[in-house]
């Protein structure tokens, strides 16, 4: 999606990541990060028109994990709020759609996770087909290994890196969005989301060409990810960066890859790209988020120092 009726900008963000948080619960983890992001533009929760978060119960180990986390927000008087059981980047895409309506001008998007509490490799197995694949407990790193081998077998890559252990980290990210003039009021350096879209692929690994990322390419086309001078990629295993570079048509631009905490990492890449554009380190950047085994679902956002003129043709 691009050429929005109402241009949306990232006006602030904050992130926290640690290998394993020893003492704080999710409310205590989120509260300072949300306050940091809102404080950068002088807002409080009550100034926010729409709040949306991303997280997964299975990373916390109990149902309704997001319900407790809402206590960090200060949802009083009651707020317009929603939650996706997805990476926070997808929640950001939803917020961009909501901001196209007239009734809200600002949004808060946050994501949190504490995968260090459990065995992430094993937990991710239950994302697979529950009848035919999950009962075999193939772990996340093993599936990534299949993908790396498929890339080697394809002969399309000079060298494909070994698959390291799955990155495990706890953390959270908060992003503040605002529309048009409201964004310009809040900061001198709004970073405009000129396009954002996401696509999914089939779950059965056998029906996919694992040595390419079709969904990233489709999302990038729809989001208008051309002419970028930096890339912020959500890369869970190093070989996936090669597939993403291909799918995004990158050639020589600086690429900043990171895994981040599961469910947070994608939103964090968008926040990092926005920071770089705001700081003048990039003029137009592409940010990427992924979900599911072997890059099954991918989101692409294009961030620009300049807003696309309202009503511009597709």
């Amino acid at each position, binding site marked *: 999606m691009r050429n929005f009726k109402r241009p949306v900008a990232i006006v602030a963000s904050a992130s926290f990541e640690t290998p394993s948080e020893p003492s704080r619960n999710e409310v205590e983890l989120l509260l300072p990060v949300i306050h940091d992001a809102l404080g950068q533009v002088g807002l409080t929760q009550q100034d926010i028109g729409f709040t949306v978060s991303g997280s997964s119960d299975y990373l916390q180990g*109990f149902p309704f994990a997001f319900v407790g986390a*809402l206590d960090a927000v200060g949802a009083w008087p009651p707020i317009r709020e929603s939650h*996706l059981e997805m990476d926070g980047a997808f929640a950001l895409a939803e917020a961009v759609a909501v901001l196209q309506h007239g009734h809200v001008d600002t949004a808060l998007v946050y994501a949190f996770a504490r995968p260090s509490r459990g065995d992430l490799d094993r937990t991710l197995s239950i994302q697979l087909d529950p009848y035919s694949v999950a009962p075999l407990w193939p772990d996340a790193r093993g599936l990534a290994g299949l993908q790396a081998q498929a890339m080697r077998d394809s002969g399309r890559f000079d060298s494909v890196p070994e698959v390291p252990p799955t990155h495990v980290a706890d953390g959270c990210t908060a992003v503040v969005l605002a529309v048009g003039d409201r964004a310009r009021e809040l900061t001198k350096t709004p970073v405009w989301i000129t396009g954002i879209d996401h696509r999914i692929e089939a779950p059965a690994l056998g029906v996919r060409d694992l040595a390419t990322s079709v969904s990233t390419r489709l999302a990038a086309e729809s989001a208008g990810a051309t002419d970028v001078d930096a890339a912020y990629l959500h890369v869970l295993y190093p070989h996936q960066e090669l597939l993403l570079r291909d799918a995004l048509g990158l050639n020589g631009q600086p690429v900043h890859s990171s895994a981040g905490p599961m469910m947070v990492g994608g939103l964090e890449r968008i926040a990092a790209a926005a920071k770089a554009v705001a700081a003048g380190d990039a003029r137009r950047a592409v940010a990427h988020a992924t979900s599911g085994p072997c890059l099954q679902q991918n989101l692409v956002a294009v961030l620009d120092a300049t807003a696309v003129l309202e009503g511009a043709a597709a």
Partner: protein
Amino acid sequence: MSNRVAVVGVGQTKYAAKRQDVSIAGLLREAATRALDDAGMTWADIDAVVIGKAPDMFEGVMMPELYLADALGAVGKPMLRVHTAGSVGGSTGVMATHLVSSGAHKRVLVVCFEKQSESNATWALSIRLPFTGGSVTGAGGFFAPVIRAYMRRANAPDDIGIKVAVKDRLNALNNPYAHLKLPDISEEMVRESPMLWDPIRYLETCPSSDGACAIVLADEDSAKGTPNPPAWIHGTAVRSEPTMGAGRDVVNPHAGRDCAKDVYAQAGITDPRRDIDCAEIYVPFSWYEPMWMENLGFAAEGEGWKMVDDGSTSFTGDMPINPSGGVLSSNPIGASGMCRFAEAALQVRGMAGDHQVDGARTALGHAYGGGAQFFAMWIVGSEPR
């Protein structure tokens, strides 16, 4: 500012305690294909798929949208997954509406489901966190004290919950998809059913069902060529408040009142009891009907039970509530809110069959979840607004 959106297709599965004749994917496809048939569309016509359900632990599948992508025709398309506790069926409908009203997509398939028989839902809800004591058994253990507080606050007679239970079970007899069918239901039968969480009796609670409910949303152009009448969405709203908040009112939650005000304002409703022809609201325990009558502004505070007592909320009353039989008759948790939204749409489309409310032109769909803290609502009408 927003583009018009219509419900052009609705599909439901037969709700039952165990749907062992289908897989999870098969269950969703049963609802989705019925919704597509109703809309006169095929999978290829759909731009994006949104699914909603309650906790993943109910089926033991983490982020099931990943596994469901091809079964729901989403390969190569955007796919989102909403989870807002019991309100999820409603908030998924609201979020999907945004995808069309924002201009992002023209035709969106929305499917909500729960297949509790695949796992052990009671176990999933009762994971005891360390250090936390734990003296509550099931959702009834949480909501029964709230109901007792309402009864005291409103000076409501004891038999109001019984009357709601009978009314919804009678309505369910006219709904081919309903899970519970109790043809001999009577006040005596409900009164004599076992007391579970005093003041909640067994027949005043909802069942636990497998099932899915799907809708197809379309923009104005796409709605033009569809074979059946559309339901036009006149307003959508969501509100959330904290669970553990000092000073929040769990009996008559602020979030519910604000959500109703917001959706009525969008739909141009000034007197809900006069302007709305029927409503499908989330009533998992029978006493929640009079409580929500007050929260939704159909009755003054303390007077909701009178609408039950005088028959106003019955199928032939002036404000029919849950003509489908409601959550008390079918409860596929993650889909229960979507069922409310979909049934409201069927009413204004004139397609509710044997439980069609005569002349329904404006209807409310309502869902709530968590500790009565998450609310989602929409108003649908037979004419665009």
